[in-house]
C-alpha cells in the first residue's frame, strides 16, 4: 500500500492545491471571499452535497452507481417532515429518517445483487419510483412548518458560530473513513470494485457487502435530507432533483474512479468542498449564473483529466 498511499496523498494534495489556488484568485477579486463567515458558508453549503457524495462514493467504489439519491432524499424529507409536524420527538424522527434512507438503499442493493440489474438501470428505475412515492405521500404538496426544536437541533449553530451541518458532515466523513479503511467491509468494497469475480472466488459474500454499500449510500442521502429539511423548514417532494450529478461530480473530482476500486472518503469530501468553494466564489465575484454551469463542468473534466495524467506518471 506504501506506493498507493504516496499516490493517494499526492492526489488529495492536488485537490488541496487547487482549492488554495481558487481561494487566492477569488480573494484577489473580492476580499470578502476569505472572510470567516464566507468560509463557514462555503463549508455549510457543501454539507448536503458532501453527505450525498460520501455515500455515493461507496456505490462507485464497488463499480456501481446510485442515481436515486435525490429521490431517496425527497422521501426522507417528506416522511420525517410528516412525523415532525404530527408532533413526534425530533430525535426519534431523525432515526426514522436514517433508517428509511438505509432501507431504500438496501432495496437498490437487492435489485442489483438479487435480480442482477445493472446499477445504472436499477437506480434509474428507483430514482423515478422513489420520487413518485414522495409525491404520493404528500399528495404533491410540501410539508410546512417544521418545529423549531428540530431545526435548531440539526441546523443551528454551536456557540452561535459554527453551523451544526458542518459537524454532521465531518462526523459522517470520519465514520465512513473508518468503515472504508479499518473494517473488512471496507476492504471488500475496494476488492469488489477492483475485481468482483476474484473477490467472489475468495469466498467473500459479495452480495451482502454490496447491499450494505448501497445501504450506506441511502444513509448519506438521509442525512442530507435532514439537513435540508432543517434548513428550509419545509419538506418538498420535489427536493433533491439533480443532486446525484453534483454528488458524482464531487466523487470524481476527489479521485474516485467510476470504474470502481479506487477512491477515498477524504477525496470526495475535498471534492465537495471544492465544488462549493467554486460556486460561492463565482457568486461573490458576481459571475453570471449561466457561466457558473460552464465553470463547474469544466472543473470536473479538468480534475479527472489531471487524475489520468497523474496515474500515468505514477505508472512510469
Amino acid at each position, binding site marked *: 500500500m506504501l*506506493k498507493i498511499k504516496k499516490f493517494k496523498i499526492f492526489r488529495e494534495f492536488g485537490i488541496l492545491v487547487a482549492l488554495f489556488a481558487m481561494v487566492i484568485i477569488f480573494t484577489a477579486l473580492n476580499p470578502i471571499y476569505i472572510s470567516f463567515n464566507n468560509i463557514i458558508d462555503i463549508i455549510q453549503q457543501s454539507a448536503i452535497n458532501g453527505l450525498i457524495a460520501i455515500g455515493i462514493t461507496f456505490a462507485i467504489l464497488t463499480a456501481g452507481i446510485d442515481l436515486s439519491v435525490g429521490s431517496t432524499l425527497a422521501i426522507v424529507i417528506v416522511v420525517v417532515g410528516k412525523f415532525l409536524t404530527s408532533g413526534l420527538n425530533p430525535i426519534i424522527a431523525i432515526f426514522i429518517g436514517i433508517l428509511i434512507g438505509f432501507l431504500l438503499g438496501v432495496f437498490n442493493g437487492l435489485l442489483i445483487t438479487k435480480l442482477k440489474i445493472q446499477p445504472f438501470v436499477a437506480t434509474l428505475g428507483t430514482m423515478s419510483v422513489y420520487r413518485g412515492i414522495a409525491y404520493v405521500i404528500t399528495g404533491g404538496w410540501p410539508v410546512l412548518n417544521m418545529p423549531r426544536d428540530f431545526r435548531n437541533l440539526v441546523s443551528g449553530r454551536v456557540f452561535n458560530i459554527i453551523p451544526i451541518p458542518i459537524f454532521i458532515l465531518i462526523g459522517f466523513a470520519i465514520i465512513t473513513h473508518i468503515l472504508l479503511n479499518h473494517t473488512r467491509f*471496507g476492504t471488500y468494497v475496494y476488492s469488489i470494485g477492483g475485481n468482483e469475480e476474484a473477490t467472489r472466488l475468495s469466498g467473500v459474500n459479495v452480495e451482502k457487502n454490496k447491499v450494505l454499500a448501497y445501504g450506506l449510500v441511502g444513509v448519506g442521502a438521509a442525512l442530507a435530507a435532514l439537513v435540508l429539511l432543517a434548513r428550509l423548514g419545509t419538506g418538498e417532494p420535489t427536493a433533491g432533483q439533480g443532486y446525484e450529478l453534483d454528488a458524482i461530480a464531487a466523487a470524481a473530482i476527489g479521485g474516485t474512479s467510476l470504474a470502481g476500486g479506487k477512491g477515498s472518503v477524504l477525496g470526495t469530501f475535498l471534492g465537495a468542498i471544492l465544488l462549493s468553494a467554486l460556486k460561492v466564489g463565482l457568486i461573490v465575484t458576481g459571475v453570471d449564473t449561466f457561466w457558473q454551469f460552464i465553470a463547474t463542468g469544466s472543473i470536473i473534466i479538468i480534475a479527472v483529466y489531471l487524475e489520468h495524467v497523474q496515474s500515468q506518471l505514477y505508472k512510469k
Partner: protein
Amino acid sequence: MSDQEIIQFNNVTKVFPGVKALDKVSFKINKGEVHALLGENGAGKSTLLNILHGVYQGYEGKVLIKNDVIKFGNPHEAIQFGISKVHQEVSLIPELTVGQNITLNYEPKKKLLIDYDKMHEEANKILDKLHCNFRSKDLVKNLSIGEMQMISIAKALFHDAKVISLDEPTASLTSSETETLFRIIRELKANGITIIYVSHRLEEIFKIADKATVLRDGKFIRTFDVEDTTKDELIKSMVGRDVSSFAKRNKPRRFSEEVVLEINNLTLEPHFKDISFKLRKGEILGFAGLVGAKRTDVVRTIFGADHKDEGEIIVHGNNVDIKSPLDGLENGIGLIPENRKTQGFVKNLNNANNIGLACLENFKDLIFLDHEEKIENSKVFIDKINLKPKDPLYLTRELSGGNQQKVVLAKWLSTNVDIFIFDEPTKGVDVGAKQEIYKLLEDLVAQGKSIIMVSSELPEVIGMSDRIVVMKEGRLTKILDYKEFSEEKIMHYAMEGTDVEDKEV
C-alpha cells in the same frame, strides 16, 4: 546481409525506468524459417516483439528488415510493411463477422460505402487458403478460440504479411487445433513467410521450429539449430542452470486411504454429466483432457463457483450443499483459478490484502480490521511461497506472472482449507516459478492436504499426479492409477473416451 536474412537485430537495447528490458540484443532471422523465441517470463521476448511490431519507439540499436533500417511509429505502419502479430489473447470483435474483423480499418470500399461483396470474397479466399471451415459471413462470437486464431492469421495474410509472429498461440488450443495450426504454419513457411514463434511449450518447438533464439534477462544467449539441440540444453540456456522442466515428485508418495472428498454423479447441464470420483487424503488427483472436456466447470462446481444440477458432494463423510464459493471455503475447499488476472487477484490491492481476502473473517476482531495482523499474517505466507519481492505492500498486479500465481496460492494457504483445487497452476508461468509451484504442491500433500490439479500439460499431470481423472466432452472416461500413466493412454481416453482399445494402447 545475404538474401537469406530478413530480419536483423543489431545491438537493440530498451530501457524502462529501473529495468533494462533488452541489453544489446543482436541476432538474425532468415527468410521463410520458423524462428522460436525462448526465455523465461521477463527475459525480453515481448519487448523485442513490441519493438519489431512498432509498439515501442524509443530504443537504442537498429532493426533491419531486408537491408533497410526500420523505425515504425506505430503498429499500423508495421502491419502495412508486412509485419503482423497474432496476439496472445486473441483480439477480435465478437459481434462483427469474420470478414469485418479481417478487413477492419482497411475495408474495401465502393465510393463512400463498404463493399461487402468484395470484402467477403477476399476474406473467403484467404480462409480457403487456411483450410478454414467457417466463412467470412459468420459471426466471430460463434467460433472457437482456435478458429479465432485462424482469423488473426487470416488478417495477417490480408495485409500481405511477410513476417508473422505468434505469441503463445497454442495456450488455449486443443491438440487437434494445435495440429491444424502447425500444418498452416508449415504451409506459410513453404510460401516464404517468416514465422516468429513464442511458446513456453518446448515440445512444440521441436515439432515446428527451425531455429530457436534464447533470451535471458534481456540478453541474447544463443541461437540454436533446433535439429541439433535437446530440450535440456534449451532449458539450461534459458534458466542458466541445470533444471528439469519436467514436473516430478521428489518425495515419496504417501497418501492414505482416507477419503476426504467424494463426488457422486455430479451433473451440470449442458456442461458435464455423471461425474463420480474420490479424492484421498494426501493425494494429488490430476485432471487431464482436451480443451472442451469441461474440467474447469467440474472443479468450479465442486468449489461452489457454479451450482450443480444434481449429484452429491461429500466432504469428510458429510453430504454438503455447496452453492457459493463461501460454502466451498467453509467446507474446506479452495480454488486457485485458471485465469489469475480475471479470477485470481484484485488488481488495485496489494499483496497483503490479496492474500488476506479469503481469511480476514478469521481475524480476532469482529468489526475492525487489524492492519498489523493482516500484514504479519501475509508475511508468513510470503515467506512460505518465496515471493519476489517479499513486500506485503507491493501491488500484486506489478509482480511477474509466476509470482502473481504464488500470491493467489498464498491466499488459500492462509485459510484452513484442506482440499486445494488448482486449475492450470503453471499456465503462463516461467520455468523457475514452475519448479517452485511444484514444490509447494508437494509440500501441501506432505502435510496431509489433498489436491485436485487440472492441467493441460501432459508432462505436468503425469509427473505430479498420484492418479489421473481423464475427461472427454463433459464425461469422465477413465481414472488412471499411477502405474498406468502414459501420454498415449491419457490422450486415448481424452480423445476416444472408450475402454475398447485399452489393450492395444
